[in-house]
């Protein structure tokens, strides 16, 4: 991915592959072998034959394929704060179903194969509200729950936030899926509500504060290997080093990354394409991408291939040790780069 910015995005014509609901979701595995789309329900699409297999008559609110492309996780809303999580095989067979008492805000597979789901539940009362944020690790045998935040809200805060809760509760996982940055809302009685940015290694259970900002809509972008998170807020954009002691030393390692914001695709700071504010994009592993625009799904090409993120037991363990204070951030870097 290091090198001159790609020029070919607008030169290679898009290939229309399916029609989807105007706001419907789609998801392919990272190799683009398996594809599901939302069109009057959830369908598994065979790109070679063009055939469709209906998986559900309901439309999902989150879709993600496992990295090996063998399992699809789909989240369907049941009630205001209840979600059904369904796992399908790549052939469309139902593998597992479970109910989660939250609105799903993020769903990913870690490189190790853990299905991770974050969600929230906002309950409003005449005297205020309660906001609960939860991280789930789901497999076919059990659901492990970890409460990220449990906050009491003043009546005005609860009322104001209810319709925009998703935008003020962003969550981002690291590319490996073992760490995440999330937001914890605080609403102290005599002060204005504010957001505390939290950083967690979910397996160690340890978390720490990265800082706080006024209540507002946010977006996060994770940067590796610099170990920082770019925060795009209404008031300002800034980069948040996760390990401040190594921030300077790893600055030189920063590389441009693709970023898709409001229909615009950037490579670092360079604008590559503008498909309109309603467009949605999924970048695949081999330089190809899926673009949804005005109820149509296109397959594009011409992006630089990103290196695959693969599971490394050593790296996974070292990051947890770093979080638990068993090794320093500098020791983590040294050990990560050490060659046999």
């Amino acid at each position, binding site marked *: 991915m290091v090198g001159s910015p790609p020029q070919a995005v607008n030169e290679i014509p898009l290939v229309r592959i399916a029609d989807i609901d105007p706001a419907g979701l789609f998801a392919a595995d990272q190799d683009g072998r398996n594809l599901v789309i939302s069109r009057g329900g959830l369908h598994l699409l065979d790109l070679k034959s063009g055939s469709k297999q209906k998986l559900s008559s309901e439309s999902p609110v989150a879709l993600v394929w496992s990295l090996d492309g063998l399992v699809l996780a789909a989240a369907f809303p049941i009630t205001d704060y209840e979600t059904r999580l369904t796992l399908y095989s790549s052939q469309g067979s139902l593998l597992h179903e479970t109910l989660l008492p939250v609105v799903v805000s993020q769903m990913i597979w870690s490189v190790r194969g853990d299905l991770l789901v974050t969600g929230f539940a906002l309950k409003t009362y005449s005297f205020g509200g309660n906001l609960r944020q939860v991280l789930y690790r789901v497999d076919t045998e059990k659901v492990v729950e970890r409460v990220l935040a449990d906050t009491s809200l003043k009546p005005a805060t609860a009322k104001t936030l209810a319709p925009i809760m998703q935008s003020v509760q962003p969550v981002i996982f690291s590319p490996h899926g073992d760490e995440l940055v999330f937001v914890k809302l605080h609403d102290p009685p005599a002060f204005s509500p504010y957001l505390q940015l939290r950083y967690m290694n979910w*397996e160690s259970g340890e978390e720490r504060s990265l800082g706080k900002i006024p209540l507002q809509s946010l977006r996060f972008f994770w940067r590796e290997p610099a170990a920082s998170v770019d925060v795009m807020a209404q008031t300002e954009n800034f980069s948040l080093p996760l390990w401040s002691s190594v921030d300077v030393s790893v600055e030189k390692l920063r590389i441009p990354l693709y970023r898709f914001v409001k229909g615009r695709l950037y490579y670092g700071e360079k604008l590559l394409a503008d498909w309109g504010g309603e467009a949605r994009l999924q970048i695949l592993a081999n330089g190809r991408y899926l673009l949804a625009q005005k109820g149509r799904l296109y397959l594009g090409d011409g992006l630089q291939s990103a290196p695959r993120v693969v599971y490394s*037991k*050593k790296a996974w*363990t070292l990051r947890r040790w770093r979080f638990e204070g*068993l*090794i320093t951030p500098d020791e983590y870097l040294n*050990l990560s780069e050490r*060659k046999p």
Partner: protein
Amino acid sequence: MSCLLRLFVPFCLSLGFAITFCFATTAAAEDCVECHKKETAAAVEQWQASSHASTVDCSDCHGSDHEAILKGDAPVDAKVCGRCHEDAYRQHISSKHGMGLHSGWGCTRNLVSRDPRECRFCHEEGSTQPKTNVQCARFLAQTSEMEALGCNRCHQVENSCASCHTNHITDLATVRSPGTCATCHMGPDHPQWEMWQTSRHGVLFEAMGETAGPTCQRCHMPNGSHDVSYGITMSPAMVQSSSERFATSREEMVAICMQCHARSFAERELKSGDVILAQSQKLIREAEAVIRDLADRNLLVPSLQNRPEHPLRGQDLVLDGQMLYEDISHIERLFFKMKKYALAKTVKGAFHQNPAYTHWYGNAELKMTLVDIKAEAARLQSRPAPVDEKSASKAGEGSLFRSIQEELQILKRKRDRGAIDAEEYSQSKQELLERVPEE
């Protein structure tokens, strides 16, 4: 006897004067007595026979709100007595008895390292009364029945003069008896009464009375003082007082001993007690280091993670005055016995001039329990480490990563509690990290 009369007559006279002054106008007690002769006959009889009968009416202490009395909302606590017995009350609240309900707080006033500014965390300016609720882990770990009968029945001495004086009897014969102290100051954790009783002092008292053998009150409440801390040079946890306070308290006790003994004898005896205290504390520290090392290695059974949380410290290893005797490992139970029982018998036995308690019940038990602790530690070290499910799932059973991780955790715990310095920590860690496999 003449000696005691010289001590107590002026005290009683001043007490009587205070009472007369305090209740110059008293209400008649007929209304109470008429019913209470039937309901609480003993209380009425004791009051009628007391020195209070002529000067202090029922309502002077109990108030006149009968409903509140029945509900228990009008207790006759130490403050009520203190309205008349001002000196006694002042002495009482500034003494160890005055913090009886808060002994679990670990008051620092007798510690060498004490910072007087810390007092404000628990006390209002000039008060020994704490601002917040009970912080005694052993108390919090009991049932309400045990708290009331097993804990507060003794520790209520802070707020209750009746703990020693009883409710309505004013005859000082009861509180001059060592048996009054024995209600609480006996048993395995601080057998002062048994020590005194079987010491030369106690034997002489038994044989020849107070003129020959001093009582608890004679040495610890001289001249009728209610400051039971008088002349004491260590805290209830047997930590020696700061040097300035130590010198003052030691001189107070030497002066008491000199009523019967030569100064040189008294100083030598008490100095021996100090040395025995230091020698015994060294054994305690040795045992504590053994247990802390086991905890660092996660070898305690049950482990700190697999037992109910300590009421005040969560999953920390607690070996100080807040140590529990339930939900702990066997080796901690041995340490509890060593510190709470054997140490007390050794040290308090020495200061009470009881050779059997100092040596056999105390010193020998201290050393033999340390042997037990070391043997138990060896047994625990020879067992496979208990599998912490959380750790196991993290690094995989039997993997090199897990082994290194455990060693790193042990090192970190040792550094966090100051058992190794930064240099040793860094060096040991680098040696471990050299073993990290590539995959």
